[in-house]
């Protein structure tokens, strides 16, 4: 399954889960429920000791997962067991670099992962990984932030494959009450040369719908889901995903 498939039938709901928090079994079960509830794409996070782009919720999840023994080997084993919708890797570059970009790409491909998001790898540093992704037919998804200058935003959108990740606000991941005007601006100014998914701080069905209404082809929800998994509320997780999907469809442009 290709990343692009997630966007083929209307606005895509992309759910982030932290692999191994609190254990692999739970992550797999959470993924099953999220898929059942209508998610279109899974971001499977590989926990890192130093997640500089993440807020407190995902930091804490990563710490729990590491403490429970999560590592790159186990990550790929577990990822291979999750099926039904496209999956992308989400994690920090040092974890990729230590394994070696070639081997890492090969492991992704072998476990059914079809794309990579590496939040601390701007295009300037991405060449080695980009080459490896090409060899293994993986998408390498770049991010655009509200403060990314226009020319650079366009270039990043062009380079990104699968989709382009629009960072909804400055700062780090984590749920936020209001959706900022700057996010709407960002959606408006990044050319739709490929699907644009908005993430960082989206936690409610209403926010998700606003993003779609503003033109986004996809919405990424992370901390809100990780939080519910952390609380052991998988039922609430399912409910949240269903609710988001429902509201997103409501406002989706008719095709």
């Amino acid at each position, binding site marked *: 399954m290709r990343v692009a498939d997630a966007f083929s039938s209307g606005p895509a709901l992309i759910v982030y889960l932290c692999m191994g928090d609190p254990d692999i079994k739970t992550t797999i079960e959470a993924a099953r429920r999220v898929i059942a509830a209508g998610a279109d794409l899974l971001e499977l996070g590989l926990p890192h000791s130093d997640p500089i782009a993440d807020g407190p919720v995902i930091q804490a999840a990563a710490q729990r997962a590491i403490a429970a023994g999560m590592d790159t080997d186990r990550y790929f084993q577990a990822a291979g067991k999750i099926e039904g919708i496209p999956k992308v890797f989400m994690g920090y*570059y040092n974890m990729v670099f230590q394994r070696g970009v070639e081997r890492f790409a090969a492991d992704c491909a072998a476990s059914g992962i079809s794309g990579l998001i590496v939040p601390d790898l701007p295009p300037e540093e991405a060449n080695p990984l980009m080459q490896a992704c090409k060899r293994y037919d993986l998408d390498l998804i770049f991010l655009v932030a509200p403060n990314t200058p226009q020319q650079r935003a366009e270039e990043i959108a062009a380079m990104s494959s699968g989709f382009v990740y629009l960072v909804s606000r400055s700062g780090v991941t984590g749920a936020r009450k209001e959706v900022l005007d700057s996010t709407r601006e960002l959606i408006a100014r990044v050319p739709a040369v490929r699907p644009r998914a908005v993430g960082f701080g989206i936690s409610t069905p209403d926010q998700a719908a606003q993003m779609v209404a503003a033109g986004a082809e996809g919405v990424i929800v992370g901390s809100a889901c990780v939080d519910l998994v952390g609380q052991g509320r998988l039922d609430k997780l399912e409910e949240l995903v269903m609710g988001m999907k429902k509201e997103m469809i409501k406002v989706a442009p008719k095709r």
Partner: protein
Amino acid sequence: MMTTSHTSPLETARFGSFGGGFIPETLVQPLRELADAYLSLQADPGFLEELGELLSRFAGRPTPLCRADRLGQALGRRIYLKREDLLHGGAHKLNNTLGQALIASRMGKSRLIAETGAGQHGVATAIVGAKLGFETQIYMGEVDIERQKMNVYRMELLGAEVIPVRSGSRTLKDAINEAMRDWAGSYETTHYLLGTAAGPYPYPAMVRDLQSVIGQEARSQIMEQEGRLPDSIVACVGGGSNAMGIFAPFLSDPTRLIAVEAGGRGPGQTGRTADNGASLAFGSKGVLHGAMTKILQDPFGQILESYSVAAGLDYPGVGPQLAHLAETGRVLTRLASDAQAVRGFRYLSQAEGIIPALESAHAVGYALEEPQQLGDLCIINVSGRGDKDLHTVMEYEGC
């Protein structure tokens, strides 16, 4: 590749295969603006004059180059000490914080944030925050806050707010993470004042340049006092700012440059903590805090905690330029263990009447161990004073 990247200083931010900018997209623009501001101010006479005045009238530069007769006699050579211990705040840190704060002020920022481990850089940031009228917030791991109560009080006294970091290992590296996260959301009003020659471009180059006043002074002082270049320079390495600061002006000279890392308890690892702070000696290539460098990590790429009796050397990474210079052999990397550092601490105190910082004591401890490596004429960088370390040494010695 991208066209913008070709014109960006990020492209020139490499030291061999080290350095670069492994950072979230949100930080790309703030770092470019910082790099641009820094590059243009570097040649701005008004800025340089203001910085020069602050360095001399506020910070106490030039610091002396002081012959250590009794130490030199014991080692059978001429030893000079570069006295950064006499700088305001008690260490070389202020060279960097003054420079960056002045850059931030020219960039129109009103707030400074910084990370601190032991508190030295936090204090140096709080000092410039007070002097130049910034709102100042210092990220500090909860574990470190507990260990360094006096420095927390000092920062608060200077008007800074200390923000406890509860994530990760709750120590220095997590404080850096937290400061970066803050900055990603606050850069419009805020400057992130990184404390050592590490991190993404332009920090390693900027901090090196701001600290190279140490080496520039030392170079002209030794020429004046001895009429020739030193055979060797010894400096301790945490992130690498005092070492790069004194080494930089000597890079194209025949002077042997010796970087002494924290050997700690030895080369091993206890749980998820390395027994040392020696990323050049025992680390491997990887990305930490935005730069490709040498780091202490596990085989999967999780960062280890570091260990040293000297809080300022307790960092699992190192500046990328030092990693490069070590790789090419231009800088020799050596170790001083906890015990050797404490020996250096005691020795310099008794022989010269100078209590060095435990960090700097690593350089002294190494010199005592391998005097034959120093040549006839050697400069040791006394990066700071040791008043802050009395408790630590007393405890180490079981008093």
